[in-house]
């Protein structure tokens, strides 16, 4: 027994892993040198200071730890870290000044063909691309702050760009002043949660060709065009907040060619268009809140079998805009703040069906400039006449059971 304890202690004192300290006055004064000395399982501890290094290649299973936020300055020369290893951790660094390029996606941290890695609590400033993760699996990216000074979309990069990966977790990051905050391209089985993406030039979050992913509890604010989810299947989006995406072609959420998605408990506030739906099929929208948007929902392409239940539509200029006379989408049991019907049997469900499409929204679709007439008496008149005898709006596009009171449901 004693022997075992002794061996255990021996192991903990003279363990197999070493710590290599890096600081300006240490024997090892650069990170590159520290990484070169390390073997699998070692810790490279970088003390605070400024390290002017770029293209730091890491191909070992090591723990790169920054103490008191050491600054790694790329001096606008290529990448800063290039990691190509399994089981590594990169933690606690401030990485800044990454080169811009039209042809190469220079990034502060580039991860290539890696598995089981963690990147946490780093601060990335003035970057071109922040994290560029390629062909990797089982990665966790958490607690990072990425920002840049993007002024022009063409000369700026994305915060977290994930390409051809699977099983990734992106949590609690803050992304601002980039082109796209988060970009998923050919990514599957991944989770995005509790991130904030704001003031980005293009999209807060951008999904392309990425199936079977889930994003929840994120906040997307003041982005150029909101969030875009395109050409993907089986995406679950819930408990996200999309707000203040204002502009002529701006929206909270753009859905393009999406199939079998679940969208529930999201909050859409003050966007020009809450959700722009284009070519989406078999989608469920439940318990979402649409508050003070220009258009809460705008259908722009062939959309089939979309179901809307228990959503709150409050004070939107248009609740719904529709582009065709055929309807295969179902609206039932939603709360519409401009519903003027009554509930004589007091079961909480309005006795008169609600028609969410106003005739004027067709006029605006055809001639956008007519929007200045929005609050005029004439427009109220044509909307009213259409409501009484529908001619232009699709016959079946009604909520047969509009709910009388706002749905109080935690979003």
């Amino acid at each position, binding site marked *: 027994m004693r022997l075992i304890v002794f061996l255990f202690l021996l192991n903990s004192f003279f363990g197999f892993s070493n710590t290599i300290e890096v600081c300006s006055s240490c024997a090892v004064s650069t990170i590159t040198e520290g990484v070169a000395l390390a073997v699998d399982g070692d810790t490279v501890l970088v003390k605070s200071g400024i390290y002017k290094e770029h293209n730091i290649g890491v191909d070992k299973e090591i723990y790169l730890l920054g103490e008191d936020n050491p600054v790694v300055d790329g001096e606008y020369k290529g990448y800063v870290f290039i990691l190509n290893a399994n089981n590594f951790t990169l933690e606690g660094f401030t990485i800044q000044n990454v080169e811009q390029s039209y042809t190469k996606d220079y990034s502060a941290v580039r991860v290539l063909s890696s598995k089981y890695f963690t990147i946490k609590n780093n601060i990335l400033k003035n970057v071109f691309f922040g994290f560029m993760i390629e062909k990797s699996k089982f990665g966790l990216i958490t607690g990072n702050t990425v920002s840049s000074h993007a002024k022009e979309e063409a000369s700026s990069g994305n915060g977290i760009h994930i390409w051809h990966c699977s099983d990734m977790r992106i949590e609690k990051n803050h992304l601002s002043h980039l082109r796209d905050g988060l970009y998923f391209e050919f990514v599957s089985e991944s989770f995005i949660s509790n991130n904030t993406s704001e003031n980005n030039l293009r999209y807060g979050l951008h999904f392309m*060709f990425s199936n079977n992913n889930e994003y929840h509890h994120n906040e997307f604010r003041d982005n150029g065009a909101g969030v875009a989810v395109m050409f993907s299947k089986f995406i679950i989006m819930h408990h996200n907040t999309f707000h203040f995406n204002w502009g002529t072609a701006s929206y909270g959420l753009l859905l393009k060619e999406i199939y079998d998605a679940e969208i529930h408990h999201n909050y859409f506030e003050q966007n020009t268009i809450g959700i722009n739906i284009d070519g989406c099929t078999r989608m469920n929208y439940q318990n979402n809140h649409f508050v003070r948007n220009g258009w809460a929902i705008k259908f722009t392409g062939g959309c089939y079998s979309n179901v809307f239940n228990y959503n709150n539509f409050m004070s939107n200029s248009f609740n719904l805009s529709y582009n065709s006379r055929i309807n295969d989408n179902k609206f039932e049991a939603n709360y519409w703040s401009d519903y003027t019907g009554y509930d004589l049997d007091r079961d909480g469900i309005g006795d008169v069906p609600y028609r969410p499409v106003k005739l004027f929204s067709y006029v605006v679709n055809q001639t956008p400039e007519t929007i200045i007439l929005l609050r005029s008496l004439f427009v109220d008149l044509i909307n009213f006449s259409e409501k009484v005898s529908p001619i232009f709006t699709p016959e079946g596009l009604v909520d047969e059971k509009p709910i009388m009171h706002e749905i109080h449901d935690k979003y």
Partner: protein
Amino acid sequence: MKNIFLSIVFLLIILPSCKVEPTPIGYGQDHCHFCDMTVVDKSHAAQYTTKKGKSYSFDAIECMARQLINDNSEEKMEFIQVANFAEPGNLIDARTATFLVSDKIKSPMGENLSAFNDAKIAQKHLEEFGGKLYTWAEIKAKLSK
């Protein structure tokens, strides 16, 4: 007489503005006519201009090719232009360009497709990045599959 003179002057002013010309792409403002994404990538953007003079921008060459294939509308176009990868922001005629599909050069819509004005420069990129060279007709054939 004076009236005739004035109307000739007026016509001279009016006529040149009827010429069909491509409208410069508003990077960061224009939306792709095919996929609705904001056009940002100066090295992969594309644009066609109809014979009537209306220009449509695309965020990627593959988007424009797909739109042309879907509408079968290539004959209606006065200009079909693609970004020159070697010279970002500069548009060249798609019908005479050389195209490179290479895994190492990502394009906005996932086809890894870029265009070059000069076949020699395209060859140079092919040697550096790998992949395969195509002509405009071949690209359309590849994308219409």
